[in-house]
């Protein structure tokens, strides 16, 4: 296996590089605009937010907005609640889903096709119609106004992540399984020694997607939590919304910035794990 070869085929010529660069920069006008709009809105005075034509640079810069949001709501409590909640669920979903996905990708059993169809099927029912039965169920467990309805089911895995990991696991060479078998190892050994180490990028991708979903999810916390101090950020932000045009957009956007920065930083620094992870080579001895 020649790792250095990989670089030579991946390199672009100068013209190609320029082309890619130009397209990427042009696209940023579109893709970075929402972030830019949030930043400038978060620094405006409320009376300037709606002025037309839009001012591209706040005048004056109202840095106070950022201190005010921390005075108005327990923002740090929300951040803390979210971090704990997201950390537990992402971990639970990633581990459980990996186990289940391994079974669907690598093990033969009667009924596995039907079960896999059910796993996929659970994604196809619009959540709006299962909301009430689910609430009744968790009410019966006496779990309302706690994170239990959101956290405990995560240990059963997520259909989306199971499906995603299954697709990745299908692409891992079966020879390695055979090798473990010949050495007398069981399925658990295969999973922990072969599949997991080889799927770090896939697992990291799954984790980041689950992270983003949990970080932003509003409806789950909205239905199950009622005590303000327990709110995660997604729900806590709504404290800055009001009906009938009374929403303080500058404060809402400042608070939203606080909510957006952690995932952005995480994405920026963690991408080497999920995007530039190890390469599964095609050479198989």
């Amino acid at each position, binding site marked *: 296996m020649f790792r250095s070869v990989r670089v030579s085929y991946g390199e672009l010529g100068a013209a190609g590089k320029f082309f890619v660069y130009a397209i990427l920069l042009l696209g940023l006008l579109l893709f970075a605009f929402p972030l830019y709009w949030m930043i400038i809105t978060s620094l405006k005075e409320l009376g300037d937010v*709606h002025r037309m034509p839009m001012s591209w640079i706040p005048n004056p810069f109202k840095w106070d907005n950022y201190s005010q949001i921390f005075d108005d709501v327990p923002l740090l409590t929300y951040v803390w609640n979210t971090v704990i909640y997201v950390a537990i669920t992402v971990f639970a979903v990633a581990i459980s889903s990996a186990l289940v996905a391994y079974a669907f990708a690598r093990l033969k059993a009667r*009924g596995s096709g039907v079960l896999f169809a059910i796993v996929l099927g659970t994604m196809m029912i619009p959540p709006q119609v299962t909301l*009430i*039965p689910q*609430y009744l169920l968790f009410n*019966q467990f006496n779990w309302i106004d706690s994170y239990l309805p959101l956290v405990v089911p995560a240990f059963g895995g997520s259909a989306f992540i199971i499906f995603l990991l299954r697709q990745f696991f299908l692409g891992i060479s079966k020879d390695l399984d055979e090798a473990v078998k010949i050495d007398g190892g069981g399925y658990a050994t295969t999973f922990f020694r072969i599949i997991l180490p080889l799927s770090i990028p896939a697992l990291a991708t799954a984790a980041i997607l689950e992270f983003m979903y949990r970080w932003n999810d509003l409806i789950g916390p909205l239905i199950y939590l009622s005590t*303000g101090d327990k709110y995660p950020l997604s729900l806590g932000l709504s404290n800055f919304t009001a*009906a009938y045009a*009374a929403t303080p957009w500058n404060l809402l956007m400042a608070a939203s910035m606080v909510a957006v920065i952690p995932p952005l930083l995480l994405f920026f620094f963690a991408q080497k794990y999920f995007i530039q992870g190890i390469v599964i080579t095609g050479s198989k001895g």
Partner: protein
Amino acid sequence: MTMKTKTTALLLALFLSVSLLYGCSKGKSNNAASSGDTGSSGGDKVTIEWLVRTDPNMIDWEKDMIAGFQKDNPNITVKLTTIPQAEIDQRLTTMISSGKVPDVWSPNWANSGFASYMKMGALKDMTSFIERDSGDISTINQQIMDIYKIDNKTYGIPMLAIGSFLFYNKELFDKDGVPYPPTDWNDTSWNYDAMLQKAQKLTHDVGNANKQVFGVLNSMSPNLQTWGFGGDMFKPEAYTSAVMGEPAVLTNPQNKEALQFNVDLIQKHKVAPNQATVDAVSAVGDPFLTGKVAMVINGGWGFWAYGPAKFKWGVAPIPYHDGRKVPLFVDPWCISEKSKHPEESWKFIKYLVDPNNGGKKFMEKTSATPADTSLADQWYQQMADKTGMKVEEVKQLNEGAVQNGREADNHLIDKFAVISTTINQTANSLWNGQKSVDQGLQEIDKNLRSLKF
């Protein structure tokens, strides 16, 4: 095949266990205590849940109310739940289905509105409380108090009563030398033609995004626009029985006049922004706040929503027309039918509307028009300070809005959210000029009739 039978058997067993589990949960949930406390008798500690929509302007008042009430009533704990208005219906229906309902809330702070929840049976008849403690709420305007009296049963105690007005941007008027509109609702010279003339003088540079100014925008829903011309898409009984019944879309000739007038503002005179232009802005806020619309017909929440505007603005009556009616927006406090602690909830509501305490503080904090007559003078003063208008002018404006006012359709007709979606779909193609008003009215009538209730 054994494989298939085995799988089927397995699945069957699975579903069976699940449905049993679910069945149990359903049976028991109705008996579950509403807020975690069992028994409400005697000196036991009781917790009531107070559900409100999120509003940064109200949160201090809400905390103040809870602290004060709990101090006076050490055996009652009030738990506050705040939910954004856009999601409140989802949350409420879920809670109602489980029997785990909030004790005190305002159905108009959900998109479905009072009538929908009243018809559903989610609200408690408060008549006996009111008769017993009539002295405590005697200063609430009787006309407004009667709005939520259905079949002689009162389901809500009004807290605020907001009228409808025409708000105008004084700077744009001054720049073009256009005289301000009056403040007298009985001034018949201030009619829709007069409004159109002013709008034409104020409109300029339409199409040039940097300079354009639109004369007027009617942000009322299509049915409320017809009210302003003496029309109505529903029969009078609809508002008292809460049942839409036979629509009056085609039988009331004023409906056509009203909608045609608004279409002409947009399409013929080009003094009003196209619906599309409005949507882009209203995703974020109110078009009036752009500073590019000189006059806007809107609910009285403009009094505080327009507070942060960087230009001076004034308030005028909605133009005169024979049979003119304008919407009132009265928000009541209600108790859930299934509340485990109605007595404590009632006590809390009395505290919230007390003109010497809760009601007064609410007005001071939010600038919302109080339903309590004893607070009126203070509110006029407060608004006069805020807008730079004279106290008498504010008084004249608000009294006229109440006299000409009628409680809004979405609060009084059951499932109005569905009805208004139905009307708006067609209305948008009217404003865009894609359908004639006659065609549109026919279609609205047909679609309303096809709704199943």
